[in-house]
């Protein structure tokens, strides 16, 4: 901290970039668009990029967007990823409301707690996808949620880092 205070202030007089309020939402939409990458996955173990970006932003700051923005973002994710329409809308909005509650309850925040929260949310996401698939006549054993859950939990730090870097850039820090 002291060293940072002694360093020359290169960012002095630099404000937020234009459209800084939209940057988080746009980055989530771009993460959802990653499913358009031309990779044919046989196992479906890739992480849900849009959801990872969403919880990374929301865990980083409570005011990244108004809670209801999660609904249109979820709709976009459903369209891009081929989930049944409504799955991400309901789930993402519910996650926003749940995290609002968690923000009131937690006395402190740390890196490990955030990672644990993220793992819990990813588990809820995978379970919901699994349950919906079961309703749609594609009932797989529950063990099948474990590999994608592990992979997305391990991918979370990368997305959290990306969200933090984007946040510093958009606020001009």
């Amino acid at each position, binding site marked *: 901290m002291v060293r940072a205070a002694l360093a020359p202030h290169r960012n002095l007089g630099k404000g937020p970039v234009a459209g800084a309020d939209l940057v988080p939402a746009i980055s989530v939409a771009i993460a959802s*668009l*990653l*499913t*358009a*990458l*031309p*990779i*044919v*996955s*046989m*196992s*479906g*173990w890739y*992480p849900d*990029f849009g959801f990872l970006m969403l919880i990374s932003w929301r865990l*980083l*700051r*409570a005011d990244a967007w108004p*809670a*209801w923005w*999660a*609904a*249109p973002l979820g709709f976009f994710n459903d*369209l*891009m*990823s*081929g*989930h*049944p*329409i*409504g*799955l991400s*809308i*309901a789930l*993402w*909005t519910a996650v*926003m*409301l749940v995290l*609002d509650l968690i*923000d*009131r309850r*937690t*006395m*402190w*925040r*740390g890196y490990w707690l955030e990672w644990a929260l993220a793992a819990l949310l990813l588990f809820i996401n995978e379970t919901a*996808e*699994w349950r*919906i*698939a079961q*309703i*749609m*006549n*594609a*009932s*797989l054993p529950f063990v*099948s*949620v474990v590999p*994608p859950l592990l992979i*997305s939990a391990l991918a979370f730090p990368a997305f959290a880092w990306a969200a933090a870097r984007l946040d510093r850039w958009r606020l001009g820090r």
Partner: protein
Amino acid sequence: MAPPGGPRPGWSRRAQYGLFFSFLAAMAGLIIGIVMLGLSLVAPKSYASVRGVALDATAPVTGGLRAVTATVGGVFTGAGNYWDAARQNARLKHERELMLQRIVEAKAISLENRELKAALQLREHSRSPIATGRIVGSSFSSPRRYAIFSAGGADGVRVGMPVRSSKGLIGRVIDAGSLASRVLLVSDRASIIPARILRNGQPVISQGRGDGTVDLRPLEVGRNPFKPGDIVITSGTGGLYPPLVPIARVVRLDDDGAIALPLADPSSASFAMVEQSYEPAAVADEAGGIPENQ
């Protein structure tokens, strides 16, 4: 570290109301999401048009980039082919000799078959492909296995049509935009295909396992009819898939069935074609695109 500033905007009435209305909007979003989810579970066709538009918007990008990944992948597998090339060459020559013999036999059989069919006056549907395209992408993160196919309604592709490559069955169309369509792969859990073992013609059922392999179950209870290496082909029962298309090769036996690998690997198949539904009436019955029988 203290938790991020919670929803307590201070004394400003305007900020408090803003927060409250945002909460109401989020609740509304949640309810709308649940209703839409229920609708897409009960009536999967209700969002067909909007899903088609989304497919059309992303498929050209995916298709364009696919050439890049195919080239990169080709460099690695191509380099692998030079390894041990002499022995590979000798083996391939030997296989070719055997194949030539088989081809002659097969030609004789097909001639005989044609004569017998003419004698019986058996009528068959013509099997000309409707459209040819590429598998350009897939579902990434869901337990379902879908692929994006680069031909759509403008090329004559309709929901329910079977998709195959030269190596075997890939799946069938479940969403059709005008430029691209979404294919339910053979390895999806919901894709249940009536099949036969090529070796002895015994009827079996093929169901995907969601991880790139399929589960094979015999229709008749009894001794496990599978052997490792068996090829399974479609039987044409039910009318969704044309008969005699190879599906998968058995790799492992389990207690009452077998686990098999699909012969047509969508991640490496360069071209795929959509065929006319074998019995169009069967597809019309099953308008939802999801088989009702478990």
